[in-house]
């Protein structure tokens, strides 16, 4: 399978009055062409920062990509000048935001906002832009597109607005779509419709999707692979099957405890006891130590080595170390 995006050792920090927040601390993952990768994790673990970093939309100041590479189709995005990056945004990589109520400009018509993307990047007439916009409205399932183009965002419902945002993101036919909690702000029936739309669009266009979410129900529905993030690191990654049926990291297990069913959307993560570490001075070792029921002495001191369960399944946890496994086996025999 072709890799379309490869993120390596990504570090992002924010300088604030209180000190430096190490929001993303060495994230590695890749995305294959045409697949959907879900990034899940508690609030504040760095999911949005990671996706903004890919778009190079981290507000600077205070934010900065301090280390790492983001290779998209053989180009390292972290090294590109802003101007080149602008020609990639919206054309090769697009983004969808959480709240469709605020993602659209209230003072411009839907048509203007849909068309400005194509017109920015392609030399086309306004008639061509309009027919492209109508085509997109049709693709995302908005009835009466011709009249709807002339309307303003406040004349649409939340679900319809999210469809428009999706149409806006797709109008230049990007190869990668980053959706940051695209259904969180919608009610459950609308959520299901939007998720279905993602599936249809992927089928029709072959776009690769990074889906950021809190909602394991959403993940179960449309993800191919899942990356679990904790305190600025990806601590476990695997196929949907591997993560749901064979989770290895204690944090992933905690996350999944409440969500055994793949057929129900809308279930939220049940909080695990304790709070994530302070990102001003994150621990040297495993960031989950303070909350982990299996924590060992080494956990606090050294960050675990990444172990591979399979070609696709990787875990950052000392429990995977041979010595820990022997110890556990020994104590099991004793009992």
């Amino acid at each position, binding site marked *: 399978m072709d890799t379309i995006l490869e993120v390596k050792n990504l570090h992002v920090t924010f300088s604030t009055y209180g000190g430096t927040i190490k929001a993303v601390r060495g994230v590695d993952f890749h995305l294959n062409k045409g697949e959907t990768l879900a990034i899940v994790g508690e609030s504040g673990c760095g999911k949005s920062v990671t996706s903004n970093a890919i*778009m190079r*939309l981290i507000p600077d100041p205070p934010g900065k990509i301090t280390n790492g590479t983001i290779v998209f189709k053989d180009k390292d995005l972290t090294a590109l000048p802003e101007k080149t990056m*602008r*020609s*990639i*945004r*919206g*054309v090769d990589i*697009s*983004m969808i*935001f959480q*709240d469709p109520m*605020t*993602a*659209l*400009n*209230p*003072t*411009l*018509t839907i048509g203007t906002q849909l068309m*400005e*993307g194509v017109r*920015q*990047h392609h030399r086309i007439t306004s008639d061509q832009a309009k027919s492209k916009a109508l085509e997109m409205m049709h693709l995302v399932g908005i009835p009466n597109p011709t009249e709807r183009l002339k309307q*303003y965002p*406040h004349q649409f419902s939340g679900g319809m607005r999210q469809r428009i*945002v999706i149409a*806006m*993101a797709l109008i230049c036919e990007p190869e990668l779509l980053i959706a940051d909690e695209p259904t969180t702000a919608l009610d459950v029936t609308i959520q299901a419709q939007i998720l279905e739309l993602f599936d249809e669009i992927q089928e029709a266009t072959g776009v690769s999707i990074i889906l950021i979410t809190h909602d394991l129900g959403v993940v179960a529905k449309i993800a191919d692979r899942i990356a679990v993030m904790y305190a600025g690191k990806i601590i476990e990654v695997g196929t949907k099957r591997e993560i749901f049926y064979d989770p290895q990291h204690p944090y992933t297990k905690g996350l999944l405890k409440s969500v055994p069913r793949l057929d129900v959307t809308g279930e939220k993560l049940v909080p695990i006891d304790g709070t994530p570490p302070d990102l001003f001075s994150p621990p040297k070792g495993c960031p989950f130590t303070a909350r982990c029921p299996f924590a060992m002495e080494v956990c606090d001191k050294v960050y675990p080595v990444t172990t591979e369960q399979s070609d696709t399944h990787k875990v950052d946890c000392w429990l995977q170390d041979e010595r820990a496994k022997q110890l556990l086996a020994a104590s099991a025999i004793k009992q």
Partner: protein
Amino acid sequence: MLRYILKRLMIMLVTLWIIVTLTFILMVSIPGSPFNSERGTNEAVQANLEAHYNLDEPYIIQYLLYLKSIVTFDFGPSIKQPSQTVNDMLGRGFPISFELGIMTIIVAVISGVTLGVFAALKHNNVIDYLAMGFAVLGISIPNFVLATLLIQQLAVNLEIFPVARWLSPAHMILPITALATGPMAIIARLTRSTMLEVLTQDYIKMARAKGLSPWKIIIKHALKNALLPVVTIMGTLLASILTGTFVIEKIFAVPGMGKYFVESINQRDYPVIMGTTVFYSSFLIIMLFLVDIAYGILDPRIKIHKKGGE
């Protein structure tokens, strides 16, 4: 839309009527008459004059006569300068005052918005601090003080600009500066704060995610939204600029309407007082109406054209 405009017109007429009535009450309750002077006027002459201008009638008749003059927009001749009608004075003064006012508004809006936008874009930077320091000064210095300062420094000391009068573009610079600085400062501060807020909105992030250039984002997406609150204060600013013209016209000896207005009050020149008041108030009321219409056009969420203004 039509219903809304009709409703607004009714309200405007009522407002105007209240203003006219209050002006009349104030006018008759201030002591003195147009024919009083320090030297004293002959009793018989005064009575004659008063009869001529209907000032001997009961107040209610006088009031009705004034209302009639307003409806027909014919205020008759000035009492003090009988060779001129009030309409002549308005016709002569208004274009000049209008020129002063309009140019002040244009200068205040353009420079205020520019200053505010740059301050917001250079948030917490030297440019921001300089612009906002300047704005605070502009708000706190009254226009007549600024006017005097400008005359003293730029006209008298440095002789760059003429001291007074309204003859050439060079004559206009100081009065416009004096009158525009306050409103400009208010607009700059408001623009800065709304701009800062707008720039953090998701739709700005979305516009960046579409790959639009920074200037396109600022002009097309940010500025229009940031200017909505500025439009709402335009009414107040217009009123303050309008009253400001009285003072500024006086200081710079600009032969606008303000001159006639102030003089007419000093001299109890009743027809001129009424005429200028009615004219100023109608003008302001119409301007406020236009501001509201402009707001409705700028902000599509306000639907004046569909449902009578709800």
